């Protein structure tokens, strides 16, 4: 009774509760990764953990390799909301086996999706569903330097996907079918070419990945490759730039998890169940990111917008009383 009184008094005095609640959750640091979907997730976590679980959350800037290394070696930051597992596969498996890092849940329920995409309106107009059908119509996909050829926009120079995309291009025999592989140079330029195609209502065919703002803003369809994913072929040949015998092979779905340190798992208690339950679909994230681009919103704006607009999604991640606390704070 005294404790309740004390806390209400403090609350009335205008002091916030973390001092008392520190026993529950305490100070935690979350990596705000430098790409859009992860930055948004970090802010959603910050707001829910602060308002709903009375944690004291600090955001630190991050990127896959440095953040993972720091979590693994120094147990800092406590949490990486969106870790693309394939990028750090081997050291991560080891860290999980040795108990330094835990992976309580998949943040992206669909996983990270890569593939060859075309505008949906074009796909519907011409009944294109598969890569082979699209490759039969080079005239629908302008943008190549040789005006008579179709353009296949590739992955930016030097990215891991560059070799894969090139091997898919070669494997599909796109060159013989009248296509040219356009090196997009950078992600910004690749985005620019998509924006241009949609502004002009022209066709576009190329490599892209979800969840991204671009796929939220522009309605695109992922082409079926009509080929299974073959891990042996994939790692033995497709990922290499000198693959001797490239064939079209379906991209694997990338697992994207939330990673937390052992310390966090121990001290955060109830918040761990939130982290384990928190999972959203690529459609949700694409939509949120495109809202953010349209409104030139920061990650913080985006997180508040998400919490205000989609209570039905996030209320399932937390117990009802926590959800009420968060709603009250919005």
């Amino acid at each position, binding site marked *: 009774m005294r404790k309740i009184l004390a806390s209400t008094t403090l609350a009335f005095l205008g002091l916030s509760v973390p001092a008392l609640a520190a026993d529950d959750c305490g100070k935690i640091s979350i990596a705000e990764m430098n790409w859009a979907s992860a930055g948004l997730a970090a802010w959603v976590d910050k707001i829910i953990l602060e308002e709903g679980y009375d944690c004291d959350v600090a955001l630190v800037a991050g990127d896959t390799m440095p953040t993972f290394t720091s979590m693994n070696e120094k147990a800092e930051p406590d949490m990486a909301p969106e870790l693309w597992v394939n990028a750090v596969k081997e050291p991560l498996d080891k860290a999980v086996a040795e108990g330094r890092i835990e992976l309580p849940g998949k943040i992206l329920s669909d996983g990270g999706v890569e593939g060859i995409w075309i505008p949906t309106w074009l796909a519907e107009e011409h009944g294109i569903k598969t890569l082979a059908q699209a490759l039969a119509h080079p005239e629908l996909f302008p943008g190549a330097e040789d005006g008579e050829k179709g353009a296949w926009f590739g992955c930016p*120079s030097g990215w891991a996907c560059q070799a894969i995309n090139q091997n898919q291009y070669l494997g599909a025999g796109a060159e013989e079918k009248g296509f040219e592989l*356009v*090196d997009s*140079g950078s992600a*910004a330029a690749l*985005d620019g070419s998509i924006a241009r195609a949609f*502004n*002009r209502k022209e066709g576009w065919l190329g490599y892209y990945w979800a969840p991204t703002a671009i796929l939220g803003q522009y309605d695109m369809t992922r082409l079926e490759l009509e080929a299974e994913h073959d891990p042996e072929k994939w790692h033995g040949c497709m990922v290499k730039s000198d693959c001797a015998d490239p064939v079209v092979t379906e991209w694997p779905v990338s697992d994207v998890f939330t990673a937390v340190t052992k310390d966090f798992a121990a001290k955060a208690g109830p918040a761990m169940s939130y982290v384990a339950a928190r999972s959203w679909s690529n459609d949700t994230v694409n939509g949120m990111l495109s809202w953010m681009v349209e409104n030139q*919103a920061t990650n913080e704006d985006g997180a508040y917008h998400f919490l205000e607009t989609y209570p039905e999604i996030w209320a399932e991640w937390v117990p009802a009383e926590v959800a009420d606390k968060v709603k009250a704070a919005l």
Partner: protein
Amino acid sequence: MDLIQFPEMSRSSLRTLRQVVDGGFRDFTRAWGDTLESLFSPLQSLLTLIENLLLRSPWPLVLAGMAALIWLASRSSRITLGSVLALVVVGYLGMWEDTMRTIAMVAVCTMMAVVIGLPIGILMAQSNRANAIVTPLLDMMQTMPSFVYLIPVVMIFGLGKVPGVIAVVIYAIPPVIRLTNLGIRHVAFDVLEAAEAFGSSRWQKLRDVQLPLALPSIMAGINQTIMMSLAMVVIASMIGVRGLGQPVLQAINQQYFTMGVMNGLAIVAIAIILDRTTQAYGKRLQKHAEAGR
């Protein structure tokens, strides 16, 4: 009053401002994209033509042609031999195709820069008002981070050569303009007075007195323009321009040290060849002028 926090525009009006500008630009690309693109299509054809000429002719012919051009311009066997040697080494190391693409690109960019820059420089020298208007524009072109205007250019022209040429010319044109202006303004007043005393018209004065005397300065400007367009090769590759920039970009992203250094050195080799040749040509022009008078 709060003196720590700078009084700034409210977040919502700042956002509206950005949205309005972005929206305006999007409408502009929708309305004018096609027109602008067809306006620039001769440029694309010119580039493709030069590139194909360099890539589809037999390599000994290309090498001999380049040697002949370098010799004609420099009249120096040392420079010619050195250039041929450098090109042979670059080609032997597997960079012939990319090198040819880069040379074609730099050639077209330099041509564009001279064709556009020279008249602007002359205009600036003639009129102080033009000078006052163009100078800040040149400052902006040289300092604005390229990606700020590269992406809008991509939204209009797509990926590839034309946006590449535009980006490179924007960055590399200022030296021609500045040094043409400077060279003409530095022609001694008494020389001009003498020309006037002989009754020369404005055009005669410009053609026969000012431009020849400003030539060393103009050549230095062209030389700088060539160097700067080579420096832009890697940036241009970020919007899909093919050439030596692409392997460099790839090497940077994947930490392939040797590949980066080799392609970087190939860019340096082109730069040195063009620099020595144009400098020798400039010197020769001067000598000729001095001997003639």
